[in-house]
């Protein structure tokens, strides 16, 4: 059932992404309600699928990250009045659901699976995944910013100019995602510490997982610091977001390759 639901989600996200990409491939744009309805329907099915999942393991973590991304995409597109975020968020979410299916959506067994029904744990996972998704949104906004910046600077008035949001709005979206993402992730990390101390008698997780979690937190904290304290904005802030998110991804892949395992998200 979980797999079937994820396959439906994959199809809905896939078609939604194709429709969002169509105008950039010089194909006729689809009606706006359809562009919104498909990811909405996908997200609704996705919520049902995730509610049946035990939030432990790589597959569920990827699936939850995909859902968070799609929800953030829908929210930001409502604010930006355009579908440009879907240009990156759509393929990313679709790929994440695909990877989740490939990784397997059956949770790890044992005491951890039982403990995963604990509210602290669920909240920890939800906040941590949301924090990473917001970081991804900041990356997407930064990438769109740089593309739009390049087009405006080069005085090219093609599809990017027409369909991408204004520079300042993308900059604001990047700032908002970072500023909301950092406390969200911090709370997620604190809940992990609290959960470990209260229910598990300490943190029983792999070293790599702690390293990656702390690295992500530090990078996100740095991105917020340069924006808020150092007042970076525009292109410099966009480069910082992209560098930070890329570093987080690279460290994840490096750790995953160094310590392969499917029971945890690392």
């Amino acid at each position, binding site marked *: 059932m979980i797999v079937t639901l994820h396959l439906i989600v994959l199809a809905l996200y896939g078609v939604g992404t194709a429709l969002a990409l169509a105008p950039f491939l010089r194909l006729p744009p689809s009606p706006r309600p359809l562009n919104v309805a498909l990811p909405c329907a996908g997200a609704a099915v996705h919520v049902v699928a995730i509610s049946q999942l035990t939030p432990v393991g790589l597959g569920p973590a990827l699936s939850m990250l995909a859902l968070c991304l799609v929800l953030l995409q829908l929210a930001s597109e409502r604010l930006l009045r355009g579908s440009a975020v879907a240009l990156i968020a759509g393929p990313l979410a679709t790929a994440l659901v695909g990877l989740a299916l490939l990784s397997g959506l059956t949770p790890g067994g044992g005491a951890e699976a039982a403990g995963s029904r604990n509210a602290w744990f669920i909240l920890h996972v939800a906040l941590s995944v949301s924090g990473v998704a917001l970081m991804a949104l900041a990356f997407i906004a930064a990438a769109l910013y740089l593309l739009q910046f390049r087009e405006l600077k080069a*005085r090219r008035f093609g599809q990017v100019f027409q369909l991408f949001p*204004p520079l300042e709005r993308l900059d604001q979206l990047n700032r908002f995602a970072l500023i909301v993402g950092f406390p969200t992730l911090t709370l997620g990390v604190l809940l992990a510490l609290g959960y470990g101390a209260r229910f598990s008698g300490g943190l029983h997780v792999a070293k790599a997982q702690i390293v990656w979690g702390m690295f992500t937190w530090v990078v996100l904290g740095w991105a917020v610091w340069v924006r808020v304290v150092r007042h970076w904005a525009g292109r410099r802030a966009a480069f910082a977001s992209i560098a930070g998110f890329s570093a987080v991804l690279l460290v994840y892949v490096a750790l995953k390759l160094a310590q392969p395992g499917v029971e945890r998200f690392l």
Partner: protein
Amino acid sequence: MTDHSGVGIKVLGVNHRTAPLDVRERFAHGAHEVPGALARVMAAGAQGGVLLSTCNRTEFYLVTEEEPAFETVWSLLNERLPATPAGGAREYGYVVRDREAVRHLYRVSSGLDSMILGESQIQGQVREAWEIARAQAGPVLHRLFQTALHVGSRVRTETGLGMGTASAASAGVAVAGKIFGDLAGRSALILGAGDMAELAATCLSDEGVQITLVANRTQERARAIAERLGGRAVSLEDAWAHFATTDIALCSTAAPHAVVTWERVGHVIAGRGGRPLCILDLAVPRDVDPAVAQLENVFLYDVDDLQTVAAQATARRRDEVPAAERIVEEEADLFWAWYGGLGVVPAIKEFRTRMETLRAAEMERAMHQLGHLSPEDRARVEQFSQALLNKFLHQPTVALKAAAEEGRGYGLLEALRRLFGMEPPA
């Protein structure tokens, strides 16, 4: 092969389709240069002339034979090129003749020939060109330009060709919106105080942009615009420092060279930090040195850029083109009928009356000397003189009517007037 000889309506020019901006800006004539340029063409034999010079076109509308007026126009344009290409100004130019010339002006005034389809600014520019050349236009071009304005109005009223964003000024607003998002509360500095500057400043003001400064060489005009839009008038020299704080700089001076140079504003803009500065250069020749755009957060757009943006926004206007073209054709037919035929009929009448007066006067003089003739003989002589006159007038009348039907009436009419000393119509 078409015969282009003889006096007729001719258009010689360059436009946005045939010449790039840097060539067009060299050919552009300021209002003060127009009478001199037209005087040279008139001295070369043109009977009427109007020079329409905008940022998108420089066109001489002439009533003339082809040579030597054409040579004079090309020489005038060649003189403005720094290095004359192999074909001279002709390389960028075109010639339109007779009915096509009428149709061309009607399409121009309707906005059908504009870079931004359906833009309305051209209507005012056609009117201005006509007014500047009032003394040199002559009756045909007077009527042509008068009807062109009527055609422009008809097209805008009866079709949707003028709907939505069309002008470079409104495209400037759209581009600034792609940088800043919401424009309300942004600040703008206006360089120049001409009609274009005022129009663009009004567009920005309508979007909630605060016009803080209007800088111009002559303070009086700058003050008038500043007062209307809620800003302050300053001299150009005082404006450079404000590039450090303003969000939008709108440049539309009549300066013959770049006034916003790296030397003047480079260090000022560098002190802005990362804040973007949108510079809209609506002037031809351009006001802003392209080197200024090398500064990281400077977004510089010239007339060509803005017109490209507006052109995209007007894609839906294309649906209205067939209706607009129908109006143009209909009006061109009407003008052509007037030009070819209606002008000839009174001339033929006048010509015949003049000949008849001469005949009657000569007959009276002869009859004094031929007093011995009987009334019957007098009647016969009278009849003979009338028959002779009719024979003489038959061929010119037929030729004039035929020329009128072919749209060449005006040229023959001119010849007739010159040969017989007839006064041109008022």
